[in-house]
């Protein structure tokens, strides 16, 4: 009897203590990290920073320069009407970082939602429908009537609402769901940028949108990942291509939850920045910008020299958890002269 017990115990001990045997080792491959350390491995490489695999479902590359001007028509009095159709959902599970799946709540299927863009004085009409399982709204920053504020008029599951207001004031604003608990609705991804252009327009520039956000994938009230336009490290492994001596205008919106302060640091040049983009006089000339939740700034800068320049949160915790990227400034003049 004792012998049987001993045998059972020893077999179960072996089962637990000796790791499960896996497939035979293959050819070792060299894994070189971006900090210059190299190891030989036969296993898998998990590297969200130097990711080279297939693109994820959400493409921060196209989001960067994608502006939704709406369906344009002209009213009898000459006012431009811009109509947008926005659908909220809360059932999508998206690969937010390579291999990491998270339940995102979305406007039109993406985090951030589409960048809504109008000109000062346009009539903006948003046909909002809620296809989620919870109540959602669209709360726009800007000047509008109280009943268009998207706070007290919860839109229940299956519900619809039409938000209508004139685009004012000029500047960079945002929209987000304002249903309680707001933190939860924002943290899951219900937000986007809203730009009101001045009637006379702005100087010609290469325009980019950066929505600074984070992902609390294990719901402990702390962000596991940080990013510009959701996917951590995306612009690190896919640098943003720009040209030297060309005006770059970056629309930077901070919608980060849980951390009270976020910031933006630019390498190799300095920018003029315009808080909320409402004024024509820059608030400063700097390479650092500190923003609290809901704050946004328009940045204008140029690169003098070609090359790879980082931009990232100078709060390095954020940058080492994904909020880091690079501009690849190409010398366009030189290229032209090369071709000649």
């Amino acid at each position, binding site marked *: 009897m*004792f012998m049987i*017990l*001993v045998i059972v*115990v020893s077999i179960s*001990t072996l*089962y*637990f*203590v000796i*790791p*499960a045997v*896996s*497939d035979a*080792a293959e050819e070792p491959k060299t*894994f070189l*990290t*971006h*900090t210059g*350390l*190299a*190891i030989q*491995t*036969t*296993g*898998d*490489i*998990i*590297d*969200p*920073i*130097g990711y080279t695999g297939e693109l994820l479902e959400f493409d921060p590359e196209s989001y960067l320069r994608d502006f939704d001007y709406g369906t344009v028509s002209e009213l009898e009095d000459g006012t431009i009407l811009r109509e947008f159709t926005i659908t909220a959902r809360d059932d999508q599970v998206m690969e*937010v*970082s*390579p*291999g*990491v*799946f*998270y339940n995102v709540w979305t406007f039109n299927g993406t985090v951030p939602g589409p960048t809504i863009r109008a000109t000062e004085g346009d009539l903006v009409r948003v046909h909002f429908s809620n296809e989620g399982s919870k109540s959602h709204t669209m709360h726009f920053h800007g000047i509008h009537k109280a009943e268009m504020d998207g706070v007290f008029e919860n839109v229940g599951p299956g519900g619809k609402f039409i938000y209508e207001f004139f685009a004012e004031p000029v500047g960079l604003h945002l929209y987000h769901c304002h249903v309680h608990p707001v933190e939860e609705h924002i943290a899951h991804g219900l937000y986007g940028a809203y730009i009101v252009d001045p009637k006379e327009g702005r100087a010609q520039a290469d325009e980019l949108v950066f929505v600074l956000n984070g*992902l609390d*994938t*294990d719901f402990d009230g702390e962000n*596991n*990942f940080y990013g510009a336009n959701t996917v*951590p*490290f995306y612009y690190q492994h896919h640098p943003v291509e720009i040209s030297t001596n060309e005006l770059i205008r970056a629309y930077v919106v901070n919608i980060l939850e849980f951390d009270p302060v976020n910031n933006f640091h630019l390498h190799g040049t300095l920018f003029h920045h315009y808080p909320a983009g409402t004024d024509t006089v820059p608030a400063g000339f700097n390479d650092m910008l500190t923003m609290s939740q809901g704050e946004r700034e328009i940045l204008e800068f140029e690169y003098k020299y070609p090359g790879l320049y980082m931009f990232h949160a100078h709060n390095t*915790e954020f940058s*080492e*958890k*994904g909020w880091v990227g690079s501009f690849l400034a190409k010398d366009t003049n030189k290229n032209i002269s090369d071709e000649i």
Partner: protein
Amino acid sequence: MAEISNYKIVLSAIGPLMLLAIVIAFLMGPGTSFLEFGLVLPDIHIEQIDFVDGEIQAIVRNTGPIDVNITVADVNDRIQPAAIEPDNHLTKFETALVRIPYDWNEGQPYSIGLTTDDGTRFEKSVDAASLKLEVNAELIGYLGLIGFLIGIVPIMIGLLWFSFIQKLGSNKYRFFLAFTVGLLLFLAFDAIEEASEISQNHLSEIFNGQLLIVTVTILSFLILFAIGNSLIRKSQFSKISKPLAISLMIAVGIGFHNFGEGLAVGAAIALGQVALSTFLIVGFAIHNTTEGFAIAAPMARTKAMILRLICLGLIAGTPAIFGTWVGGFSFSPFSTVVFLSIGAGAIFQVVVSIIQYIREESENTLSNTSIILGIGLGLVVMYLTSIFI
């Protein structure tokens, strides 16, 4: 006739098992959706962290009910690229080695985090990073010497009390036998406490650490009880005297215990906890002198045979050397808990043997003042020496 009744017995034994199998098949078998409700959450456990040249290595085990993929590795909550061998997919109970290239700093605390495919981060911390010990002659010698110093030397010193015990009258002798019982009882509880501490800090919950200790302790007690009894029974027909048989069992029990002590010291050295390991070494050395006494006590009524005493001392002390090697080179929380529990069970068995012996020596009574005083004093002495650890 006899064959038929055997057949019936087998059937009556297997019948309920077969019914149970049918119930399990109904609950969990293919095609049933009976238990498919509720949430299943992944769970992984980082079992070990090693620091090697330019690299931090973590061994992770899938302790949850479902398969997981490891997707992100981090050091101090900062994401780092890493390699994972054999691959990043872990089936239930499977382990993998995560290798994070990292220029770590000696003596600095680190926490290593791993994130699963559902975005949940799991973490384990190390108080102070130190280079993983590599097996070489010098280190084997060093750890062996430490094992020798905490195991064999103090026990041999303790055995020198033999001639003192020999000169005692029967009442005083009973006192010292009871004193030994007190010492051993303390050691057994000490081992259990150590084991539960390790299981709480290092063993994943899935192993049910506390119940593992209970199970192994009782099993070890039962097995050694059976062996001990047959040894004592045989002693009636052979040259081995009964006191020698008891001393031998005490030495074996203490041997298991010292293996556990060696593990603790070796692991402390491997983890670079120099201050702690110095304390452990001095503490165990003082503590273990009393073990020599415990071995010597039952033998004191027989003729002094130096060679036998030395042999018993070696049986009890040598495992400490093996313990420091195992603890230093391949510390495994699971096997440490198992060995400590075996030690506890072994000591309980020895306690029972000595109590039986005392009863025979003192006409079947234990309510003798010297016996009660002896046990109590033994516990107190051990408690006081344990403060050094």
